[in-house]
């Protein structure tokens, strides 16, 4: 869906700002909000550009930098840390060949950290887009990452 269609879905009131930003960001391959997007939203809602920028940069789930197709968010909250999320995170860094906040060369994944994902009983956990994965081990991570890559190639 293009940006204009997304905007039209919502009444032009300030309270729809978060929904609009979510929708625009999700509609884009690079999963981010561009300068143009923010300007368009600001015009549509009649809210100043700095205010829109302020919201877009306040919440960790919005990005104003280009990202990969899939956002990998590793939970680094204390319950997961106790259960070994450091190992998981380091393994992902190695496997994907990126540091925190970076995107893989093929633009498939962006690696991020997240506060508690609320699945502490299956810690350590991570989320890829809207899907949750728990009880992570290096083997399981390989399996999951392979699945995503195969989906793309197949």
């Amino acid at each position, binding site marked *: 869906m293009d940006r204009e269609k997304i905007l039209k879905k919502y009444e032009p009131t300030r309270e729809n700002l978060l929904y609009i930003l979510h929708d625009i960001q999700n509609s884009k391959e690079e999963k981010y909000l561009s300068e143009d997007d923010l300007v368009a939203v600001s015009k549509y809602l009649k809210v100043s550009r700095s205010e829109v920028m302020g919201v877009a940069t306040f919440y960790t789930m919005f990005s104003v930098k280009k990202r990969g197709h899939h956002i990998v968010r590793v939970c680094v909250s204390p319950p997961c840390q106790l259960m070994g999320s450091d190992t998981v995170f380091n393994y992902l860094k190695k496997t994907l060949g990126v540091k925190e906040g970076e995107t893989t060369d093929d633009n498939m994944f962006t690696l991020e950290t997240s506060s508690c994902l609320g699945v502490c009983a299956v810690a350590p956990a991570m989320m890829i887009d809207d899907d949750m994965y*728990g009880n992570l081990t290096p083997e399981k991570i390989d399996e999951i990452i392979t699945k995503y890559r195969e989906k793309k190639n197949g």
Partner: protein
Amino acid sequence: MKLEDLKKIREKMEKETSLREGKGRIKAVVGMGTCGIAAGAREVLSALLDEISKRNLTDIVITQSGCRGLCDREPIVDVYEEGKEMITYGNLTPEKARRIVAEHFVNGNIVKDLLVSSK
């Protein structure tokens, strides 16, 4: 919905949950909270459905539910059978789910090694 409808639905559900009037001899409830799904409940659910359709079993109802709290034993499946106490299976995999269909649903033998028990 009117107030009178509430009572009607309740009566209908009472009958159905007692299984007698319902479609199933056995009802299996798969815990599909996020923790369950993260631990592989979706794969377990599809294995159950697949095994049941492969075997043409028409008297088994599979439904989903939220989290029952015993998250580290997820994926969990509760089995309700007429006149019997509920049984809970835990730490399931698709293969184990298929075993439950074969051994429990078809042959009536509870799969003891898959039961949730105290550690």
